[in-house]
Each structure stands twice: as C-alpha cells, then as structure tokens.
C-alpha cells in the first residue's frame, strides 16, 4: 500500500487485472489494498444510495406485485396485511383504457414538446449567434422563462388560461369571440394549454445549450464552405447542423427524459384534469398513489415508466452510435 498504489487515473486504469490467476480471496485482498481510498471516498454516498434509493427501489418493485392500498399498507392505524398477487396489477393496468389514453398523451406530450423546444431553441440560438445589436439584452430577456421558478410559471399559465377572466379569454372576447373556450375545462384545449406552457418553459434551456454548440463549431469550416460557393442555407445544412450533432444528441435525449417525467407543469396547471385528459404517466402514477391510494397499482406504473425509459434510452444511444457519433463512450 505504498503511495504509488493510489494511482492517479490513467496509470491505474488498466492494471487491475491480468496477473496470473490468483484465488478470488487473494484478488479481493489485493484490490482492496489498491483501491481502499476510492472505496472510502465512496462510502458516504454508497450508504445513502443503499438506504434511500436502492432499498426503496426494491421495495417499490415488490409493492407492484402486491395488492397494497390504503386499507392494508402504509396506514399507521391498521396492520400491514397486503399480499403478493403476482402480475395482476400489470395485467390490469396494461389492459385498461386509461392506461392507453395516458400513454397516448404521454407520447404526444413528450414529442411535441421536445420538437418545439429544439426547433425554436435552435432558431433563437442561430439568431443570437450573429453579430447583432442588443444581443446581450435579447439573450437575457429570452432566459426569463428559465429564471422564473417553475411553479410560479405554472401558476402564471393557469391564471392566463382561466375562464372567464384569464388573459386569453379576455383577448378572444376583445377579438369578437362571444363565448371563448374554457381552456382548462375542455379535454382538447387543456392538452393544448399544458403543452404550450411547457414549450414556453423549455425553450431557453435548448437555446443556451445549442448556442454553446454553435460557438464551438470551427468557423474555418464555414468560411471554407463559403469560399467553395455554398449559400447560407447550404452552409447551415451541411456544416452547422452536422457540427451540432453531438450537443443536439445529448440535449434531445435529456429533453425527452425530462419531459417524459415532468410533474410540476401538469400537476399545477390542470392537476391532470379535466377527467384524466392531461395525465401523463408520471402524474397518473402519483395520482394513483396519493389520490386513489392504490399503492400497488401506482408502483406498477412506476416500473412501467422506468422500463419504457430504459428501453428508449438504449435504443436512442444505439441509433446515435450507428450514426457514427462518439457522444457516449
């Protein structure tokens, strides 16, 4: 355990294996001698993760196979009598019409949001990447939706969509619409309302991230393309966009995961209503747990959400890798 054994990264990276074939015990002892410092540094987080993440995760998965609800679980006044019921929660959920509706809206919600976050964010980033008067002012003001605490933004949108004295209804009356829609009371309009609000909320992040990506593109490439006679559109399409791909691949994946799991906007603007028309999987699972107190069903939803995200992420990484990117190593 000399000091050179606490190898700094590069040197220590490969040497852990391949020295004859010592017994398992021996290897364990040697590894520990070599890496005790790294393990010691990890211990606090490991303990917290074990108690607060992995144990609850296991417990949550277990719950999803039981009939736990408010009468037989988590009730301080009653004994815990919930039972193993196998896959019943899953079959019930997957067969139900609500699940299909919620899944459908989750898909629409996720892709529409990320599509507009990305396209609008990219457009603004391109505009801000030019020499421009008031560039700093624009940039600062465009960051406002990101700077405002998200729960305040959600309340602001709920206020503007209010019927009949919200801003939008008043505006429509002024424009001659006699009885403007109750945006949050109608299933279709409510979907529209939460999506617009969330698009507004998410554009600045994409803008800043993509602006960073744009500024990292080698300007010599653009100049070379210009010399070769490419017009502005061709330069954008053939030089700028490919150059953005590593950043774009990352922020789009993040955006998809965040939006998929977004809780605040929906919960605070519509609470999932009217009916379940604006529920996405994340809010609907919560609603199952704490409105209906169906803990088994709620955790089954949680497991389904996690599975979808894991499968999707693997697929996404695979696709990006196949396109020849080294975004993830």
């Amino acid at each position, binding site marked *: 355990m000399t*000091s050179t054994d606490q190898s*700094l*990264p590069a040197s*220590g990276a490969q040497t852990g294996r391949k020295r004859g074939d010592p017994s398992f015990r021996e290897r364990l002892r040697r590894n520990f001698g070599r*890496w005790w410092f*790294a*393990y010691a*540094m*990890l211990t*606090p*987080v490991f303990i*917290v993760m074990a108690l607060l*993440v992995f144990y*609850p995760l296991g417990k949550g998965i277990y*719950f999803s196979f039981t009939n736990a609800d408010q009468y037989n*679980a*988590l009730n301080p006044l009653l004994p815990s009598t919930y039972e193993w019921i196998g896959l019943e929660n899953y079959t019930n959920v997957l067969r139900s019409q609500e699940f299909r509706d919620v899944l459908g809206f989750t898909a629409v919600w996720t892709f529409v949001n990320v599509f507009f976050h990305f396209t609008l964010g990219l*457009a603004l980033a391109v505009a*801000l990447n*030019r*020499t421009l*008067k*008031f560039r700093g002012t*624009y940039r*600062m003001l*465009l960051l*406002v939706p990101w*700077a*405002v*605490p998200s*729960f305040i933004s959600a*309340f*602001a949108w709920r*206020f503007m969509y209010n019927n009949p*004295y919200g*801003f939008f209804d008043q*505006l429509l009356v*002024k424009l001659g619409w006699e009885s403007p829609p109750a945006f949050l009371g109608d299933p279709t309009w409510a979907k529209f309302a939460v999506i617009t609000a969330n698009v507004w909320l998410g554009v600045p*992040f994409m803008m*800043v*991230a993509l*602006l*960073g990506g744009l*500024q990292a593109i080698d300007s010599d490439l653009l100049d070379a393309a210009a010399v070769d006679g490419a017009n502005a559109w061709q330069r954008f399409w053939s030089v700028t966009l490919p150059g953005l791909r590593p950043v774009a691949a990352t922020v789009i994946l*993040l955006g998809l*995961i*965040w939006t998929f*799991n977004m809780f*605040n906007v929906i*919960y*605070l603007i519509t609470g999932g209503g009217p009916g379940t028309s604006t529920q996405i*999987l*994340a809010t609907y699972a*919560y609603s199952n747990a*704490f409105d209906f107190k169906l803990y088994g069903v709620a955790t089954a939803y*949680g497991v389904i*959400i*996690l599975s979808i995200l*894991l499968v999707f992420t693997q697929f996404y990484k695979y696709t990006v890798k196949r396109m020849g990117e080294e*975004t993830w190593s």
Partner: protein
Amino acid sequence: MSSAGVPADTTGLGGEEVLTPQMLAATRKAPSRRGRRRVRPWYMSLVLHGSLIAATIIAIFPVFWIAISSFKPREEIISSVTLNILPDDWTLSNYREVITANDYEFLTWFGNSIVIAILTTIVGVFLSATAGYALSRYRFPGYRPALNSFLVTQMFPAAIIIVPIYQIITNLGLINQQLGLLLAYSTVAVPFCTWMLKGYFDTIPIALEEAARIDGLTPFGTFYRIVLPLSTPGLAVTCFYTFITAWNEVAFANIILLSPEKYTLPVGLRTYVYQFDQAWEKLTAGAMLVTIPAVLVFLFAQRYLVSGLTRGGVKG
C-alpha cells in the same frame, strides 16, 4: 466532450433543467470571426430583429401579466370581462394582504422553502463531493456498475420510489416535518450532486495532484487542499442547481407536509388557487415576491458562474 456531460434531475420531482459545466463554458461571448463578413441587407435585419422581439415578448409576457395583475384590486381581476391591460386603479393592497394573511403564513412558507433548500444543498454537496472525486479519478473494480447506477438514478420517475420513501418517512414518524422532507430530497440531491461534481472534477488537470502527491500530501490531503479549492466554481454551480431543484419541488412536499405552517412556497401558494374561491389577487402578489429575487439571483449567478467556470483551474 466528456461522457459525463449529462447529469440531471430527471426524476420529475424538481424538473430543473441543468447545464453541464462544458455547456456553460461554451456560452461566452460570440467569437469575433465576423470581422470580414459583408453587411447584412436591411430587410434581413428587420426579419432578425422582428423575430427576436416577438420571441422576447412571448418570453416575458406571463411574468409581465402576473406583475400587472398583482396591482389590480380583486374585483378588477375577477370581474373585467374585457381586456384591460393596465389596472384602472393601482393598489398595493394585494401585497399587504398576502403578507399579513393568516398570521404572516406567506413569510413562514418563504422561510420554510429557504431552510429546506439550503439544508438539501448542504447535505447533497457534503456527502457527494468525495464520491464525485473518486469516480472522476479512480478506475476501481466496480467502477462501471457504480457509474451506471448513478445514470439510471437520473432517469427514475418519482413514481417508483415515492411510495416506499413515503412509507419510510411514516415509519420514522417524520411526516409533516422538515427532516422527513430533507430525507426525501436527499434521494434526488445526492446522486445528482455526485454526477455534477464528477463532471467538474474531470475538467481539472491532474498535473497538480501528481505534484502534490510527490510533495508528500496524502490522497485525502490532495483532494481537500488542492482539488476542492480549485473546484469552487463547480461547487457553486452544483449548489445553485441543487438549491433550485429543492426550491421548486412539489410532489414530495405535497404529501409530506400536512399543516399550513409547515408548507413550502409551492404547496402553500397552490392552496390559493386550488380552492373554490380562487384568490388570484393573493397569488399574483405572492408570485411577484418570489419571482423578483429569483430572477435577480439567476441573472446575476448566471453571469458569475459562467465566467467562473471558464476561469477555473489551469489549462491542461
């Protein structure tokens, strides 16, 4: 870009969007490569400025509308059926009312929110700094699984662990207590901070540590005396995002905090508008009192943190 560039709270608890140090570092002033470009024709300028102005108006309008409405008396907010941008008669009574209502409950919520966000930040950063360092510098056996487990944690939907966490908190008798909420927030903050700090430590050149080791510092001494001081910008960014995430959290706070004097801001303000008699005049005034400091801090911190990040350490 390092493979570690994607830490994020994706649990849906806070929903805060996060820039990695690498992304932030890239948002400096535009490069001065445009010197010899030809001048843009006037109609292009018009289109450019026109779209940017339109975007800016949309970006600030909801905040503007809240601000304006907070100066309207209740009757004007809930009775005007025709569009009335500026208040007919300006008043500060909404502010007075929201601050003094129910024995200054708004200020209590404000205080609760600040306390819980600060505690979460301290717990998160203190616990995870060493782990972030270990993950950044050592390729120990078990490194891959450890790293992957942090990644998957970022993807967790709240739904899967919120029930068990709720059960743990109930069993410990911490329902309706700040400590219970702190426990719940740690589930998000600790892995998040570990990711963020690992990402920042990755950007610090290793030469200094090697020198420090040769000069006889212990491994921990190297971390504590050399790496941590160099990482102040990274620590600041991590603290900032952790604070914001806890500040915005609704899902856990909503089920753990039961009595009004324990509420945090989002839970408390929500009671104003999720009741039969929606008190928008109180909500708008309260929202302004929360938003103004938040926006000022954000805009200030943003600039400071960005320049701090680009300055940190020495270039490898």
